[in-house]
């Protein structure tokens, strides 16, 4: 590849700061006791796209039952890939887990068809909403409950409408909903599925501030009311950490930092690079950024 000014994604191996590496070591947290019997455990997985592109390089994480775990990281770090590896949707994109295990409720689930994984209780809210454009909202919601055979579907639909009253008014095709409305619908679908674990890929993307708050409140509520465990991928680290119990930070296909939400929130690097509280508590203005910023890298 041509050598050029390096962007945030592809850094030259030589630029690793040793000092950082040492600081890192100090930052590692002891795994909490709860993770002993997690609902979901991802153990040292390696994921390859198209047989040649290595994206995840030995990633491990644990999601304890009943918790909200946040997975943070920059663009292209492989967050979505991680979720897809768990839900099995990877293979529909020519991706493959070449090493490592994903265990859910003590059973190995990698290699299982995605629909069977859903039946086992893992539901992914995909990046970019992916609602079914040529169906109505109601039909989309009903499909969310596809794997269910009980007769509480109706009341759950009402519950979704309670969460997102706006959806009830939209009777047309879901494809014509605005971006935010589609996001609500996507989350609503997850509610309908009543899974044990929801994998959420950037639920706040494209939502207005008010709705972001609402959505996260609902996520919290889902977690508290229904006891759903949630693995949350988010760019909006501040909000994510405010609802999460535990957090992981990943870079270039690896976990570089993890800890309880509180610990992460008080970590200086996280503060600077994910929460935007460089140095002091005051947020920097977007207007006056220097062209040459220092970039924090853990790798």
């Amino acid at each position, binding site marked *: *590849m*041509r050598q050029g000014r390096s962007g945030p994604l*592809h850094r030259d191996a030589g630029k690793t700061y040793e000092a950082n590496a040492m600081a890192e070591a100090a930052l590692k947290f002891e795994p909490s006791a709860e993770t002993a019997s997690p609902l979901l455990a991802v153990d040292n997985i390696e994921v*390859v796209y*198209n*047989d*040649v*592109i*290595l994206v995840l390089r030995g990633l491990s994480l644990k999601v304890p039952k009943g918790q909200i775990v946040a997975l943070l990281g920059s663009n292209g770090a492989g967050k979505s890939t991680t979720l897809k590896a768990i839900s099995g949707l990877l293979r529909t994109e020519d991706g493959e887990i070449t090493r490592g295990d994903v265990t859910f409720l003590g059973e190995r689930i990698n290699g299982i068809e995605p629909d069977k994984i859903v039946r086992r209780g893992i539901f992914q809210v995909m990046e970019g909403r992916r609602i079914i454009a040529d169906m109505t909202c109601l039909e989309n919601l009903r499909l969310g409950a596809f794997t269910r055979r009980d007769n509480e579907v109706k009341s759950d639909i009402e519950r979704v409408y309670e969460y997102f009253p706006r959806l009830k008014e939209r009777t047309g095709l879901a494809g014509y909903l605005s971006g935010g409305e589609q996001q609500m619908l996507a989350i609503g679908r997850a509610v309908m599925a009543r899974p044990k674990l929801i994998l959420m890929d950037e639920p706040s993307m494209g939502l207005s501030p008010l709705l972001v708050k609402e959505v996260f409140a609902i996520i919290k509520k889902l977690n508290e009311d229904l006891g759903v465990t949630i693995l949350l991928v988010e760019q909006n680290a501040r909000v994510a950490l405010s609802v999460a119990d535990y957090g992981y930070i990943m870079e270039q296909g690896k976990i570089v930092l993890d800890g309880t939400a509180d610990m992460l929130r008080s970590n200086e690097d996280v503060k600077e690079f994910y929460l935007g509280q460089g140095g002091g508590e005051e947020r920097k203005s977007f207007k006056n950024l220097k062209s040459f910023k220092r970039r924090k890298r853990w790798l």
Partner: protein
Amino acid sequence: MAIDTLRPCGDYRTSYKADQTIFATRLTMLFCVAGVVLACFAPFFFSRYILSLMIQIGYLGIAALGLNILVGFSGQISVGHAVFFGFGGFASAFLADKGVPVPLAIVLAGLWTTAVGLLFGLPAARVKGLYLAIATLAAQFILQDFFVRAEWFTGGTHGAMAAPFTLFGYDLSGDDRYFYVVLFFVVVMYLGAANLMRSRDGRALIAVRDHYLSAEMMGVNLTKYRTMAFGISSFYAGIGGALYAHYVGFMSVEGLDILFSIQFLGMIIIGGLGSIMGSLMGTIFMVLLPEATGWLASALSGSVIDQVLHLKDGLTYMREMLIGLTIILFLIFEPDGLAHRWRLIKAYWKLYPFSY
């Protein structure tokens, strides 16, 4: 990281010009040039049978490339390519009959076919996807019907004679000589397509395919490019058909049916949609497949297996089945076509011994 970004170490481009070449690497270019040079010597080494297969690959390959421009690059499926191929053949035969020198007739036939293609491409302004595909099915039947009716043009159901290819009085119609004619056209047409795809209009075609809404807002006139794709595609089909006509010396409606159109589709899908060299690879595959199964069948006939199982006629059917089966298996294992596999192999070797 996309596979396309892989480039061997030490291959630094120092100017934009060097970076905008048709060939991804110097090696690829060497391969292609060497291939053409080697091909020049083919008539000295190969039997007429092999040569005729190569000629067939040549003219079908040109037409297939045209279809790939339409289907692979601009994303509009056509199931009527054979009639444009046929139109080129008839037009060239017609023009040559009227006294136009054959080389010129071939080119004019291409242009004439372009005009017809543009006409049948008009629905593309409004109709999309499979709906458009079936609209091209209409072109298939309407033109087929036209061929048998337009006696003045095609000789009606009798068909038309096509004059042999001569250039400045030299007769270039035997396999060993006509081979060079076809080779010349193949090189020119393939270079043309490669150039097109790296310049403005080619990019616009692909843009329309990938995301026509945003293409439009980037200033690309959808109607123009959708229709134009039909024109260009027909031009290639026309040239291919004209080459065919002067090779065989005769042109008839028979054989220009939907099965032939579907074979063209087979070529580009197997070769790889949206790949220029893939069109040629797919053509090679589709031309050689029946031959190869034929060899297999004749090798089998009379063999022990044959005697034990009393295959006899079964063998000919098994051969057809094998053709079908090969297509099926091929696509199951290589749904993105030969060109894709080729790219992966290249990527693999570049990264060797680090396979990831």
